[in-house]
């Protein structure tokens, strides 16, 4: 579950300020938002609206401002991010699966190792890794390519490996920032369909996209961010 109340985010613009600009305008302004477990949500908005910033906020890559004028709070999967210590950030992240526009696979590892790598990083037992990895890879329909290196896969296949990796840790929430940005229209539809299927099995899915056609096609909850504020939030 994601719950944000009156959240502001301002980047530390020391360098920009040094260049003569003293306005430290917040990138996100008074965001209040609740995404329940099991929801399927699209986030859209123009360049620089703050979509990626919102996502980074959820995984505690950026922190919300502490302001005197409002009572800010932010809760992701039971973690109170306003008071989360640096040490506990990894624990939060283990409850979230992340999918990137550029796949972020390790070229020198095959499909199996790419997925297993994420489990090893969370100190999972070898026995569990050996069972879980083939299972999620199979789920993504990549069983036959399990020993191939990413460079021999198509864009769509690479993104499916990335989704398998995100799923491996059994996260409550999957977040994808423009997962179809480098994909052609047909492959894009394929990937979003997969994410939809995962959602139907109970995982919350949040997708950032520029492609309005996909939103129209799959429907679900739509959150439109405009200049750091929520301009629209509803089902389409």
């Amino acid at each position, binding site marked *: 579950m994601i719950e944000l109340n009156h959240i502001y985010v301002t980047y530390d613009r020391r360098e920009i300020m040094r260049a003569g600009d003293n306005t430290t305008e917040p990138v996100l302004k008074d965001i209040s938002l609740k995404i329940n477990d099991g929801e399927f949500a699209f986030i859209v908005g123009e360049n620089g609206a703050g979509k990626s910033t919102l996502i980074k906020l959820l995984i505690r890559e950026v922190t919300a401002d502490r302001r005197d004028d409002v009572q800010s709070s932010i809760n992701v999967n039971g973690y109170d991010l306003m008071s989360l210590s640096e040490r506990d950030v*990894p624990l939060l992240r283990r409850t979230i699966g*992340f999918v990137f526009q550029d796949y972020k696979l*390790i070229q020198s590892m095959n499909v199996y190792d790419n997925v297993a*790598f994420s489990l090893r990083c*969370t100190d999972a037992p*070898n026995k569990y890794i050996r069972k879980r990895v083939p299972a999620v890879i199979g789920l993504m329909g990549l069983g036959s390519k399990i020993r191939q290196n990413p460079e021999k896969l198509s864009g769509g296949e690479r993104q499916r490996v990335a989704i398998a990796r995100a799923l491996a840790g059994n996260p409550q929430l999957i977040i994808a920032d423009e997962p179809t940005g480098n994909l052609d229209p047909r492959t894009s539809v394929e990937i979003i369909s997969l994410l939809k299927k995962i959602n139907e099995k109970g995982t919350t899915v949040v997708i950032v996209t520029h492609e309005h056609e996909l939103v129209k096609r799959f429907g679900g909850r739509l959150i439109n961010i405009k200049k750091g504020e929520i301009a629209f939030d509803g089902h389409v």
Partner: protein
Amino acid sequence: MRLNSFGYLFRRGAKGIIQNRIMSFASLCILTVSLLMIGFTVLFTSNINMMIGNVENKNEVIVYIKDGTSDEDIEKLGEQLKGASNVANVSFYSKEQAFEDIKADMTNAEGIFDYLGDESPLPDAYRIRITDIDKMSSTLMDINGFENIDKVKAPYDFVNVLSGINTMVTIVSAVVLAALIVVSFVIISNTTRASVDFRKREIQIMKYVGATNTFIKIPFFIEGLLIGIIAGVIAFVLTKIGYDSLSALLSSETTIFAAMGTTGFIPFSHYSVYAAVGYIGAAALISAIGTVFSTRKYVKV
């Protein structure tokens, strides 16, 4: 942390050295050179200090007696010397004894002595121990006034030269070492950075999937530790070989050593435990700390 994770991280660290082999080799070289520099300086100064100690401790002035001086006059000179101020101890050093000693020292020139026969060509002498080495000059002047003295030999100049060399070696080494330490740190830090760069993608992914900072840093720490241990071992072996062959090379120069009141270098076995522990420990520590230090900077989580 699970044991299987630790094994995994150890393998990753070892693999890092190979993936990043050029920089690892540079780290190894510079660490080894720095250790050798420190090691040889310590060995050198400790030998020189021993020699200075020997020469100084002897505080010994040799007073050569004019040839043909009668036994009576020799005895009288002995009494005079005993009575002189700042003289702690006076002992007679007969020409026969001196000849025996020199023969024993110059084992490589036996032929000459055989030819010379048993008659000593050296003068009789008194060996005098001085109480306060700082007042040496005035004591020497006093003694030079006595009769029947051929020559007075003091260790003064020699100690000066030795400690001059010592100072110089220490200063030069310190300067070079300071530069080497700077270079070492930069290289270790760059080795780590190259290693981190090599794995930038992996580290980024590790952070996103929820690896702890410790988990991310351990392989780099292990990498540094291994390089340090290897550098320490290499430096130890090189030091032993170098020191032993230098000892062997100079071992025939017994007169030189005799002049310094010793028969050769301090044997390496005297140092080996300290050297092994010091080298390996220092290198591993420096390297591992350097690694963690620079990882902290690059692996912002």
